[in-house]
Structures are given as structure tokens and as C-alpha cells.
């Protein structure tokens, strides 16, 4: 994530895309949670993962090591 996310812009686009009846009173709460998620996304982006590792855990398996 190189640029700051514009939460209000995201809400404007995505509420039409989903679509949901987005009321003005939802705005501040949703912006807050999107910004929180953006903070988490920054942490994830900075994780030093091996660059050639693209494995996902779409349904997580806790593994069978040590047990």
C-alpha cells in the first residue's frame, strides 16, 4: 500500500458496487473501521515475507507438526 487510502471515496464507490443503502449517519463509524483496517494492512505490507512465496492458506490448516 504505497498511497494513503481515501476511506470516504472508497465508501462512495463500494456502496454503489455492493450495493447498500448507505446512510450519512453510518459514515464516521465506517470510516473509522476502514482506517483501522488500513493500519493493519500497512503492518501486513511491512512483514518481511519471502518475495517468491505466494502460498495462501484459504482454509487454514493448523498443521500436524510437534504433535
Amino acid at each position, binding site marked *: 500500500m504505497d498511497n494513503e487510502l481515501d476511506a470516504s471515496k472508497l465508501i462512495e464507490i463500494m456502496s454503489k458496487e*455492493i450495493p447498500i443503502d448507505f446512510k450519512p449517519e453510518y459514515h464516521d463509524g465506517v470510516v473509522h473501521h476502514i482506517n483501522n483496517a488500513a493500519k493493519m494492512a500497512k503492518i501486513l505490507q511491512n*512483514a518481511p515475507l519471502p518475495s517468491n512465496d505466494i502460498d495462501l492458506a484459504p482454509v*487454514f490448516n493448523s498443521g500436524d507438526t510437534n504433535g
Partner: protein
Amino acid sequence: MVEAPLHFKTISELTLLIKEKKITSVELTSYFLERIRNLNPTLNAYSLICDDRALKKAQQIDKIIKNGGKLGPLAGVPFAVKNLFDIKGNVTLAGSKINYDNKVAKQDAILIRRMEREGAILLGATSMGEFAYDFTGENIHFGNCQNPHKLGYMSGGSSSGSASATSAGIAPISLGSDTNGSIRVPASFCGIFGLKPTYGRLPRTGTYPFVDSLDHLGLFARNIPDLSQCFDLIQGFDEKDHVCIDRENIDTHSQIGLGIKNLRIAKAGGYFSTKNFPQAKKAIDKVCESLSVNSTVNIDGTLEGRAAAYIITNVEGSSLHRDHLKKNLSDFDPDTRDRFIAGAMLPGSWYVRSQQVRKWFKEKFLTKFNEVDIIIAPATPCTAPAMGQKKILINQQEELLRPNLGYFTQPISAIGLPSCVIPTIDEESQLPIGVQIIAPPWREDLCLRVANFLEKKGFSSPSPVENNPFFKTGKI
């Protein structure tokens, strides 16, 4: 030694009373139903009381005894389940108004069937946070679930009613679910034992989901022998849960008395440092002193692992409720609604990165189990906050309370490790606060051995009767 009242007796004590015909199953069930009727208007721990079903089952057990038949190991033991477990003939609410008009369940959840197969008696369904997206025990639709240790304080969530009921002695055993800490947080606040087994251990068949790749089922009890016995009896593969792993059941109950000799135990450091969490620090220090633990293990990547769980929860949970967001938006609790809406809008690349980081974090964490067998970590940052509190200090930063009560539990469930919460008491506030005993995958036996050792050292479930005047009256 003062004998425990009937509602705080252990499973072995209750089953013995029934087997020796000192009490009938109907009498015991009626006793608990009466106690629920007295306490539940204040606690709001139960959302459904199954009087007829429970008494019918109790009659069957009494009939078996009369005829000299064989009893199951849980014969006559009452239990409760979080209201996301299907109960035949009832709507599975999952704490929501949206589900209120759904069709009734055609069959009980598999874990209810397994408990009843062993002779246990279902008393009812317990309150929970809306769609399990909650750590507080607050519910705008059905009322808040109270902490039996201090009314007006959070029971913790989202398995709030199960923890509150077992703490208050209106369900000796209860079942719950844990996606990011929903068993461990309420166990910590309500002063009881809570086990979140390894991801994929207990089948989720017949329960309402939240986050498929994080959802676990588990149990609450007031002591480790009860917890381990019930855990052993409900294990087993079920092909209807696509993440349930087909492997041999583990016998934990016969192992709990083995003690901690030869176990390498360390305290979690780094992310799990309690430097800025004084109540959690005291709890950890007491437990580590009792275990003679002096070493600390730092687990790199925990902050990132927790961030991954946060995004995965937000995105998967919102995806599950996408139709509800389109059609029933005004029927959500505003706190839950705003989180689900946000999750439905997040970029897909964040979710992909979360799953990659989660796998990376799991691999890093598992290498620590080459050095140690058990890791001790806080369960919650603090004791139960007052109902309505919205903010919390996390490492001296003011943060939203709802997402952060699971600060210490979320990284552990993110990678599916078994964790058992044991109770301690914060002397200053006189409120409970729990500590996590974390083991390698599939080694619930190790968690329960250490927990049992600590219980014998005095880390037992505090009785709300002793410090809550409202219970002393007997009636609300």
C-alpha cells in the same frame, strides 16, 4: 472443608449423586431450571430455556436407573450452548435480530448430540454478541449479558452467556465458539476455565458460522477435570465440517494429573509483554511464579499475525453477511453494522496478503515449540470493563475497546493453536482475569495438564456467591 452447593458441584460429584440415587435426574434438572428462573432475569445469560426437553431427558435417565440400565458418563449433567448452536425446533439466532424469523433447526448441532449421547441434559441456549462479532457481552437487541462477579460489568464475548452461566452456577458445562478470543475473553472476565482446542479438532456441524477459516468450537467449565472429561467425550471427526481433521481422538482426562515435570514452559514476551497492562502483569507473574517459570520466549511476527486475523475476520465475516448488508442494514447493531460495512469494502489484495502473512506467522511460531512445550500469555489486557465503555489503552495508546479486548487472544486463534484460559483474581478490583496456557497443535493434553497443576495450586474458579451481595439473597 465446606461442601460445595449443588450448583457448584463437579461432574463426578453430580453423577455420583444420581448413580447412588441420592437425587434423581429430574430433581437435579428442576433445581437448575429453578435457579435459572431466579438468576436469569438479572444475568441475561440464557436466551432460551428448554424446560420440557430437559425434563423429558431427565425422566429417561431416571427410567434407565430404575431399570438397572447402563448410564453414560455424563448422565444427568446439565449443560448449555451458545445460541449459534442449532437446537432442533428452535431458531438459531446467533445473537441477531436478522435471524429472528428464520426457519427452525431440523436437527441439533453435532456437539449437542454427542453431549446427550453421553447422558448430559441440555438446559438451553445462551446469549451472545451479534453474529459473534463482539468481545463485550453487550447486545442491543436482546440486552447485555452481565458478569456474575460484578453487575454492570462486561461478561466478555462473544460467548457471553455461556461464560456467565457457568460462572454463576446455572450451567456446570457450557459450549461456545472462539474466532478471535470469544471463549478466552469471557472465560477471563468471568473467572472460569475455557478451552479453545486446535483449529479443526471439534466439528462445527450445525452451528452458525462467522469466519470460516478462524471459527473454533470449545468449552467452559469451573474446573479442569470437568473440562477435560467433556472435551474428550465430544471429540471426533465429522465429514460435514470441511475443516475438521480426521485424526485419532486425544485422551486428555487421564493425563491431567501428570503434573509439569519435564515440561519446558516459558512466558511469551515481545508483543505479549505486560509492561503496559498492570492487571495482566500481576496475573502472569502469579502464574509464572507457581510454575517456576523464569524464561521468556519472543515470537517474531505476532503483530503481523494479529493484523492478518483482523483483516481476515473483517473480510470473511462481511462476505458471509453481504446479503444482510444489502437487505437488512437497519436491523444490525450499529457497532457491528459499521464493522461489517467496512469489511465489505476492503481491497482484495489486503485479504490475500493477510493469508500469506498468516501462513508465514504460523511457521515462525511453530519453530518456538522446538524450544518449549508450553507458552504462558495474558488472556485479556485488563479485568472486565464497565458496560458501555468504548475506549481502552493499548500500549498507552487510546484505542476502540471492542476490537482490542482480543489483543492477546487473536494471534493465537489466527494460527489455530490450542489454548486454555485459567482464572486468577486481581486483588485490587476483586475481579477475575485469566491467563492463557498455549500448546503446539493437537496437544490440548499439555494445556490441560498445566491448567490442572495450576488449579491444584489454588488457581480455581472464584465463586460469585462469595463476593456478590445480590447472590446472597438467593432470589433477584
